[in-house]
């Protein structure tokens, strides 16, 4: 147990932070812990969490995916256009757009792994290209409303549980299995720790890198479709906020931006922390500007706790070398 704690210190801390934050919020706003409020918090966190799933894989592998906003937005808008408010087309539209998201991820991954383009530049380029193409496609005009089925997936309930929370739970299980039990997970941590060492140890580094971006494209596209259901409509710019929140959730969850460490379970706590904060500020009567300040401070604090300086300090306090 203590071995588990020391190995996953940052993830445990993220959950501890989440619980403290929940209690603090409950003090300031007594209704916050009510079932209906917790339900809506989890639903909002699920969108961040699903987008951040792919981001977690990419960051553990030592990269970063800035193409998330417009992969998400493109999937949302194309889905709304192709379905025209009808449920039936979803049967082929959903797989098609998931494949589309995966394809963008594939392009990102191949650019990074095969052509040596820095991840920031590669994913930034695909992001602006997608943005332009979607603007050209829609001409800036709004799209039809979301099909009822997709609305059920994002706001519906099964036995009192929000459907999207169940989807998020299932995805969390899959991601945890991939990271902790599958060869892919071991390859990923090796790649993120040192690409050179991984390559010489026989890890298929190129394939692993491409897969992380592919997963990120997949989850961003999926989140885009679900988000359309949540807001009832797809609109331009709906993905913009998710670039910051997806990276922030991963960072708060304890992963190093340099790669090689972290776990999706930490990201889940990170997504919850970010969402609870959005709920806390109205209770304290604070503006959206203050929310951004708090977001920044929380990121700074959590990454500081994870830094070598603090780890060394903690080790010295306990009287042993780290």
């Amino acid at each position, binding site marked *: 147990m203590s071995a588990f704690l020391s190995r996953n210190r940052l993830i445990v801390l993220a959950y501890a932070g989440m619980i403290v934050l929940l209690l603090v919020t409950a003090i300031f706003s007594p209704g916050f812990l009510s079932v209906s409020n917790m339900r809506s918090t989890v639903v909002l966190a699920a969108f961040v969490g699903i987008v951040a799933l792919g981001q977690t894989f990419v960051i553990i592998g030592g990269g*970063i995916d*800035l193409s998330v906003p417009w992969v998400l937005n493109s999937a949302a808008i194309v889905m709304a256009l192709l379905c025209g408010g009808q449920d039936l087309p979803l049967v082929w539209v959903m797989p098609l757009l998931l494949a589309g998201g995966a394809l963008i991820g594939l392009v990102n991954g191949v*650019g990074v792994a095969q*052509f*040596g*383009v*820095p991840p*920031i*530049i*590669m994913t*930034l*380029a*695909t*992001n*602006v*290209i997608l*943005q*332009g*193409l979607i*603007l*050209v496609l829609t*001409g*800036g005009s709004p799209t039809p409303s979301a099909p009822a089925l997709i609305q059920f997936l994002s706001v519906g309930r099964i036995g009192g549980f929000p459907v999207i929370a169940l989807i998020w739970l299932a995805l969390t299980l899959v991601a945890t299995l991939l990271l902790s039990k599958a060869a892919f997970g071991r390859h990923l941590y090796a790649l993120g720790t040192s690409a050179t060492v991984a390559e010489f140890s026989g890890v298929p580094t190129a394939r692993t890198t491409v897969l992380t971006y592919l997963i990120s494209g997949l989850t961003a596209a999926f989140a885009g479709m679900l988000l359309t259901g949540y807001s009832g409509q797809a609109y331009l710019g709906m993905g913009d906020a998710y670039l*910051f929140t997806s*990276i*922030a959730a991963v*960072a708060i969850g304890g992963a*190093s*931006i*340099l790669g090689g460490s972290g776990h999706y379970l930490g990201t889940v706590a990170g997504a919850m922390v970010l969402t609870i904060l959005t709920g806390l500020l109205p209770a304290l009567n604070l*503006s*959206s*500007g*203050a*929310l*951004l*300040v*708090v*977001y*920044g*401070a929380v*990121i*700074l604090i959590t*990454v*500081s706790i994870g*830094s*070598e*300086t*603090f780890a060394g300090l903690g080790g010295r306090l306990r009287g042993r070398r780290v």
Partner: protein
Amino acid sequence: MSVEQTVARAQMPTQMKDTRPGIDWRGRALDRAPFLVACLMLALIVAIYGSLQSGVFTLDELNLDTAAAMTLMLAATGQTIVLVRGGIDLSIGGMISLGTVIAATRFTDDPSTTAFWALAILALGFLIGALNGLLISLLKLQPFLVTLATWSILNGVAMIILPTDGGSVPGWWVGFASGQLLGLTSPVWMLLALLAFWWWFRATRVGIIIQASGSNEKSAFLSGVSITRVNIVTYGLSGLFAAGAALFLITQTGAGSPTIGKDYILPSVAAAVIGGVSLFGGRGHLAGTLIGAFVLTLIGNLVFVLHVSSYWQPVASGVILLLSVLASSVAEKAARSRVL
């Protein structure tokens, strides 16, 4: 050269090729390939633009385009210094927003008050940047995350000061951008000043140390460089230039905006990368960045004269960004294979 000589030269071992007397033009060209690619792109864009629109090759057009590109150029100058150091600064977006917001709420018709606040904004930019550098060094944190966090904080402060676009600046401040000397407007003189600054700066002690610690932090440290001090100066300068960008931007918009800064974060990186600045640190020249900023700005003009939807502009800039990165990575590979 006869056929025999050519064959003989081709069969010479690689290391002998490099020791032959005279200037190694091919090596030099490969070294500067990313910059040359950027020049070529700019020439191509100007040529297409000039053939479709009359009056492109006039001073007026130069004045207009430089004014349009100057905010990005100032932001990208700071970003170039950080990239050469081997870091990245996302907080410039927050600083630009904060700068315009402070200016729009504090500037008055009284020149001394305005001058005070303008200097205060510049000082604030340097201090916040220096704080970024300090956090990165002291806590051994990644520049990406630290500046992401400070971007969010600065953006939040800007939104608290001025929740929506608004405020105003005195007319004479707005008029600064159209002030002329010898037929050239002030933005063009600023462009020349930026080039002169870089020409001076890269040869100073600080400039050399920044470049050295960007190419190899460990050897710079072992040569007695204080990494903490380098980071403070590097990010401080980036903040200073971001504040300058804010002061210039407000001559173009005439009002403050708490969200406008984010439009310059990634384009500033893109301009530098198009201009051949390496994201891995140690390599890059401001002239390249400025050309990159011109390329990104002129794409907008080009889209306009081609009579296609302005929505094609991001597509074109994305494609150009990818092309230039691919070109430089190919050139870098070629250069490396010559060295080895």
